[in-house]
């Protein structure tokens, strides 16, 4: 392995890990507050689509970024209302978000641009060198910030209390619903950022289903990282690295089966969640409501 190869692999890993970090931090916040969020994939797609569409109409990628993040946050409001206020089934609501996140952009691209799921090409976010866009360092900076907020501030500890035992948390006068709303909305914004990285950071357009399961890989990273920010970061780097090696293997013709590399995050997560080599413990209050237990 020469230096060029190592460096380009490192850069590729940073690039592929970035959308995963954003979405995984979103999933981490939501799950830590006790709300299952399997809708990350759909939220990422909404963010990716609206960022590209916003950038197209506004002519500025940063405006597009804001619109994408805003739209994904709005989509997360649906999840929050369904899961927290209506106390609906959280997995069902997430499934619906995923279907809508896939189909609404497809419907709208047909209507707005008369294409089957693709937006026009737009200007990308600026880069900081080596093709890495400005959001890459933001993603890595967010990890210690989320860690600090969760583990070293009062609201963060309340969030985790709501996720561990909503009833006890409610009984000491903390409004569980309010903290859960905040976390689910934040997960929408973060997943939206992750989606926007793909459409206006790495590429310069939205194309149908462009996340290709990254929302689920992000969810897997949260589990593999045992619901901790640093563990999640490590997992996203591992999964992003596998993806980067796979891309390199395709371009340089390395004798590695790409199918095995693509499947790696899923196999590792499967093993992790079954606790075969280590315990993986979800928040105890995940999916539970303060009033019903």
């Amino acid at each position: 392995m020469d230096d060029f190869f190592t460096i380009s692999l490192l850069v590729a890993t940073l690039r592929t890990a970035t959308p995963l970090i954003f979405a995984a931090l979103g999933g981490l916040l939501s799950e830590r507050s006790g709300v299952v969020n399997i809708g990350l994939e759909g939220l990422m797609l909404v963010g990716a689509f609206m960022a590209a569409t916003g950038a197209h109409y506004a002519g500025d990628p940063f405006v597009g970024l804001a619109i994408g993040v805003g739209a994904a946050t709005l989509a997360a409001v649906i999840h929050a209302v369904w899961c927290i206020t209506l106390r609906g089934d959280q997995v069902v609501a997430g499934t619906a978000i995923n279907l809508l996140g896939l189909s609404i952009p497809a419907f709208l691209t047909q209507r707005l641009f008369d294409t089957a799921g693709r937006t026009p090409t737009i200007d990308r976010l600026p880069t900081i060198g080596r093709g890495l866009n400005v959001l890459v360092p933001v993603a890595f900076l967010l990890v210690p910030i989320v860690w600090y907020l969760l583990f070293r501030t009062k609201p963060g500890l309340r969030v985790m209390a709501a996720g561990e035992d909503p009833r006890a948390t409610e009984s000491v006068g903390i409004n569980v619903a309010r903290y859960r709303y905040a976390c689910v909305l934040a997960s929408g914004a973060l997943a939206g950022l992750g989606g926007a990285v793909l459409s206006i950071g790495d590429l310069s357009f939205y194309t149908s289903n462009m996340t290709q399961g990254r929302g689920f890989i992000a969810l897997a990273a949260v589990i593999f990282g045992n619901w901790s920010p640093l563990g999640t970061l490590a997992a996203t780097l591992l999964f992003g690295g596998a993806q980067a090696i796979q891309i390199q293997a395709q371009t340089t013709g390395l004798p590695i089966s790409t199918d095995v590399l693509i499947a790696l995050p899923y196999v590792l997560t499967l093993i992790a969640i079954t606790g075969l080599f280590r315990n993986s413990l979800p928040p105890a209050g995940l999916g539970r409501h303060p009033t019903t237990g």
Partner: protein
Amino acid sequence: MGRDASGKARGPVPVRQPDAVATGVTPVGVRLGAAARSGLVSLAAIGVAMLVGALVIAVSGDDPVLAYRALLSGAFGDRRGVAETLVASTPLILGGLAFAVASRAGLFNIGIEGQLFLGSLAAGLVAAYGLGGAPAAVHLPLAIGAGMAVGAVWGAIPGVLKARTGASEVITTIMLNYIAYRISAFAIGRDDLLPVNPDRVATDPALPGARLARILDGTRLHAGILLAIAAAVILWYLLFQTTTGYRIRAVGLSRGAAAYAGISWGRTITVAMVLSGALAGLAGTSEALGLQGRHYDQPPGYGFTAIAVGLVGRNHPLGVVLAGLLFGALNAGATEMQSTAGTSKELVQVLQGLVILAVAGVAAAERFRVGQWFAARFGGPRAGRAGSDRASAVGMEPDLEPRAGPPAL
């Protein structure tokens, strides 16, 4: 295991009064009431989703009435339309049944897509092998059996993992979906070993002896729809007339109460997931052997629509058949809607998402209000049940635990 055996010995007793567990009250009136209410929730959800869909059409500048009329005429307007509706319904009914049987045991099977996909791959491979000129009477059952068996294995994995380690099936089935996609992609690339065609990204065509027959001249309607209806009838019998079905439902309604009655939770959810996977595998098999004549390495997405079908059908075989027909009609009519009314056929996918959301919302809102009303009027227990009812539908581990039940087994 020992407790389970004793449960089997006492089989007939619980079978006679399954609804005692379900409602806490006895028989027919309550059951009909619950079924009717269930149906109403689904109808309300479909209505709400169609209204929101109409709004979406109107906002996007088309005529909702025209669009829905075109959708309807595309789905039922002529012989070909009806046939296409049935063709589109077939995998959705089978997938919906797969979702339903897992749900009855309290599990949320998001893995139907992967189970279906691998079932399709296995059936496609077996169907493409010559087998020394085996007759259809041997080859077709073999191919169908392979599809169902592989689907069942892919369904058994999350079942066993949950039974043994408590791993959430929501996560494991999602992971297994993606692993299934890679297995198919890998298999399709190995034309040195398998009867596949990498250039067409598919298996070799199924031999004539391993195909499901076309059953209506001049249309694509194939015998898969008959398999789907038969599966629905068998599943109804299994769920509501046998001890196995009783165990599945009892475990789904209350793991604690079922354990107290000597029913093994781990074994029962594994059985439910095997059944679920086999049905999903059959859905893929019917597509490969009936509609396409081979397995294409392109995940069809039916596994996710099947969740909507199961939810709208309230996890009852009859409801699932009706919901499958509804969603099949939406898919079949979409093309005509796009050509006549100019509304993108992607709207159908939007409608499916809206229906899922509406089912979750309407059911939750209804339970929420009814529960509170009962609590205010008669005191706690009903409200408590409303909560635990929701919890068992989620399939989340902590909620399935009995609060103050018998000692752990």
